[in-house]
């Protein structure tokens, strides 16, 4: 019965796999032991490189081995450099008449070091085939290229293209691509085209949308910096992203990109601005529109004509580091006009009606400027969303987006309706109920603060109508200039310690 065909059973197959595994483990231990011994002995030679290759090819995530490799590579490069210097010193002058020979001598150590780099690049490429998301392998590739003054960045760009064809969502490759395109000085416009292609293949791709968000503000800057990019381009982007969102509303990547588009682009890198300020008989309070933990490092002074008063030693009164009180005793100067200077910001203070002291207040502004064309685009988009809501009244992202669009178009006219959408969202997306409540509170406060300067007892009293049932009180730092906060007892109880401090509460 020799030579008869028989198929291995799964049992036998398992047994065989086990044996294979055991053999691999044995080999791995042996190689690791050998590597550690060699390193202790300081033997950073070619054998070391070969040994590490064997393990890394199978498991590219052993950081130690990559570190050892880097030691080896640096060692090798240093030796080659020394060799080159030696050769140069040895080369007798008379040999220079045969130009070819001289060139050959020159290029040899250089060729060798290029070969070292190539070996490293090839290895990382093999490792990335095993695990395309290996942090170590990507890092080693960057490191190798950094060492090589003659690195071929175009080749790296092609590598990125290749890898993104395999997996257009690999964020490692996108990260690496940004690094490479900067080195290779790839025009941003060309990158944007590439990015668009990838989105056409599969728009469910956070990496690609993110890549766009970095390229667009650079390519199409917004003059006023209150939008992420020029309005013309913004319209096109809004159009594209809404198409994606409508094609698959359950894919969150497009909606997130859309929120970024509708936001005021420069928000992140902007310095915190003075939002409110009050100077009383005994002290001062200051509110910023966004946190600045390092307020005490900034020069803050009051100016009246030629007189100047330094305001130093501020203490933060909220966890968000947006509301501050002056620690030092300070007597309110008897003057008619005062200016507050905070670094390079300058604001004029107004006297408090029927009381001593001065104040400054500017409500948080929620809306960025809007040209006619952009407004038309936003309105078209809103209409599409509302159309869609007729078919799918419970579509979460559509509800949220239409609320955002309404506010972008006309915040005061659409205030109530946008809040209805949030109330509905609390039900259809109950998992994020708290998020919607918080957002609703922020919108209510934005609207109330905008109306506050018209109130009778402004700025000494802030009153929040009873019927506004809020879950929290965001933007509380703006209220620090009021003597008294009138909010419902329920909210006061709910907030407890989190109730924003008012001017009256602070023992100045």
């Amino acid at each position, binding site marked *: 019965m020799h030579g008869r065909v028989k198929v291995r059973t799964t049992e036998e197959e398992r047994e065989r796999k086990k044996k294979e595994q055991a053999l691999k483990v044995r080999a791995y231990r042996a190689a690791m*032991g050998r590597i550690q011994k060699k390193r202790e002995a300081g033997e950073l030679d070619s054998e070391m490189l070969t040994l590490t290759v*064997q393990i890394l090819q199978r498991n590219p995530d052993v950081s130690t081995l990559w570190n050892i490799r880097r030691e080896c590579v640096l060692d090798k490069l240093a030796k080659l450099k020394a060799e080159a210097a030696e050769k140069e010193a040895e080369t007798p002058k008379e040999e220079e008449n045969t130009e070819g020979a001289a060139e050959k001598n020159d290029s040899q150590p250089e060729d060798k070091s290029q070969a070292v780099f190539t070996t490293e690049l090839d290895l990382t490429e093999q490792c990335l085939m095993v695990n395309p998301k290996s942090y170590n392998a990507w890092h080693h590739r960057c490191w190798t290229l950094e060492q090589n003054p003659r690195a071929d960045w175009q080749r790296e760009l092609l590598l990125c293209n290749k890898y993104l064809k395999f997996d257009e969502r690999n964020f490692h490759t996108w990260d690496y691509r940004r690094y490479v395109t900067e080195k290779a000085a790839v025009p941003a416009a060309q990158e944007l085209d590439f990015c668009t292609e990838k989105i056409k293949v599969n728009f469910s791709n956070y990496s690609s949308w993110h890549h766009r968000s970095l390229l667009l503000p650079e390519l199409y800057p917004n003059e006023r910096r209150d939008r992420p990019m020029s309005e013309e381009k913004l319209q096109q982007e809004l159009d594209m992203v809404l198409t994606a969102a409508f094609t698959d509303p359950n894919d969150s990547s497009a909606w997130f990109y859309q929120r970024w588009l509708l936001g005021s682009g420069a928000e992140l890198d902007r310095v915190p601005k003075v939002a409110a300020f009050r100077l009383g008989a005994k002290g001062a309070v200051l509110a910023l529109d966004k946190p600045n933990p390092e307020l005490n490092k900034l020069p803050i002074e009051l100016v009246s004509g030629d007189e100047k008063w330094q305001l130093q030693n501020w203490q933060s009164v909220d966890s968000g580091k947006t509301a501050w009180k002056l620690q030092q005793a300070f007597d309110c100067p008897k003057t008619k006009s005062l200016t507050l200077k905070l670094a390079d910001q300058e604001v004029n203070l107004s006297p408090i009606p029927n009381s001593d002291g001065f104040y400054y207040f500017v409500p948080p502004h929620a809306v960025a400027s809007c040209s006619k064309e952009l407004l038309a685009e936003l309105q078209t988009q809103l209409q599409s969303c509302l159309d*869609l809501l007729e078919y799918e009244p419970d579509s979460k992202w559509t509800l949220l987006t239409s609320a955002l669009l309404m506010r972008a178009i006309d915040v005061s006219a659409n205030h109530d309706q946008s809040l209805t959408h949030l109330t509905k969202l609390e039900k259809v997306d109950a998992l994020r109920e708290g998020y919607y409540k918080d957002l609703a509170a922020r919108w209510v406060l934005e609207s109330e603060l905008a109306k506050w300067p018209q109130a009778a007892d402004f700025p000494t009293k802030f009153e929040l109508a009873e019927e506004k049932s809020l879950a929290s009180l965001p933007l509380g730092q703006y209220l620090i200039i009021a003597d008294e906060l009138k909010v419902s007892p329920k909210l006061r109880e709910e907030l407890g310690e989190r109730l924003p401090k008012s001017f009256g509460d602070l023992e100045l």
Partner: protein
Amino acid sequence: MADDLPEQFDLVVIGTGFTESCIAAAASRVGKSVLHIDSNEYYGDVWSSFSMDTYCARIDRVVEPHSTLRNASYTWHVAETAPETESIETQGDQRWTRDSVMAKSRRFSLDLCPRILYAAGELVQLLIKSNICRYAEFRAVDHVCMRHNEEIVSVPCSRSDVFNTKSLTIVEKRLLMKFLTACNDYGEDKCNEDSLEFRGRTFLEYLQAQRVTEKISSCVMQAIAMCGPNTSFEEGMQRTQRFLGSLGRYGNTPFLFPMYGCGELPQCFCRLCAVYGGIYCLKRAVDDIGLDAETNELVLSSAGKTLRAKNVVSAPGYSPVSKGVEMRPHISRGLFVASNPLGNEELNKGGGGVNLLRLLDADGQREAILIQLSHYSGACPEGLYVFHLTTPAVSEDPASDLSAFTSLLFDRSDVQLIFSSYFTIASQSNKSAAAEHIHYTEAPTFELDYDAAISNARQVFNKLYADAEFLPRAPDPEEIVIDGEDPSALNENSLPEDLRAQLHDMQQATQEMDIQE
């Protein structure tokens, strides 16, 4: 040579068409001795593919009363040779002549029976399950098309297609996606309101109730569900699901086309049959079949030799079993070669690939399938395009059966036809008296994929060998062990090459080093 042939078989299969090859492979795979015999000098019978010259020769062949391929003709629309005064390459635009096309004859793979495979369809599943797929190569179909406002347009199939198409508004996109998702989920929830409400009504009624626009409706009816106005709701849903279930597997569309033509497929099955010991004889006819009442065996005489078989399976159209049988037109086929493709540039980017278009005649009662092949299909020379047109036969005249569709396609287009050919594939309308103990396969039916053919093969196989599995997975070479070995032993030769090399490296490394256990 004939003398070497054994005389006793479990099964003799006459005809090497798709269905017969399936049965032969399945029988051989479960250990039956099989003789597969065909009087033609090629594999595949009416499922075969031909080079240009052999195709013309096949069309010219004398038709016998029981032939399945009949009413065949072809016409050249270009001159035999180029006039001598004219240089062939004027302004880089090649002028084709009969001679220049014939010079590339071997680049053609002209199918008698072209098909498109659903990427998750019966055949693909069978090929994977049986491991026959290793013998075949495929190209993902590039575009599924439809006619809309007299134009041929691409139907958005995948999510990215829907996203990228400029022809739908965003609300339409949402409606289409929503509709497709609903179809995809259909059947999971039996109590779904829709499915109750529309039971017994037509699919078109359901579609209209979904408030979809006219354009989306034609996308779905013409290209996705591929149904007519009278298709029932249930069937339309099933067809849509079949389409959607095949999406996202191999390419942008849910379809595959076999590289080098569909004639490859019967041969893949024949190869498996031969691997398991099946014997092949082409150019060999069976002259007579009789039943030995004593042994209950069939006695065949072929080329002066007597063969005995426990069972015989035959394709229609082969003598002697089909002699005297009435043949009925079944499929009308048109085959065209042109120097430019149908549809706009967008549909034929980079020279085009494989495009599929389902056509309906003016009153929507009759349908035809058009498959357009470029040289990327491996079935056509570069610079030329092959159009396969197929419709259920209504008469003995394939050209007139197809005229409604050819006029839709070619009348107002700029397609430059070089060659056109028509033929009929017939089926048997009754069995011959001699065929009582013989199992018949059916002639190709009008379908896109091979579902009917496979079910026919399965049915015949089950009649023959009720207890045996139909085409179980064939093992890969590395899974095979030779008897007498320890089957759990780590046999180096049974590992994939790269792993073998790695293990070898490791073993060497292990030997060289001091191992601390």
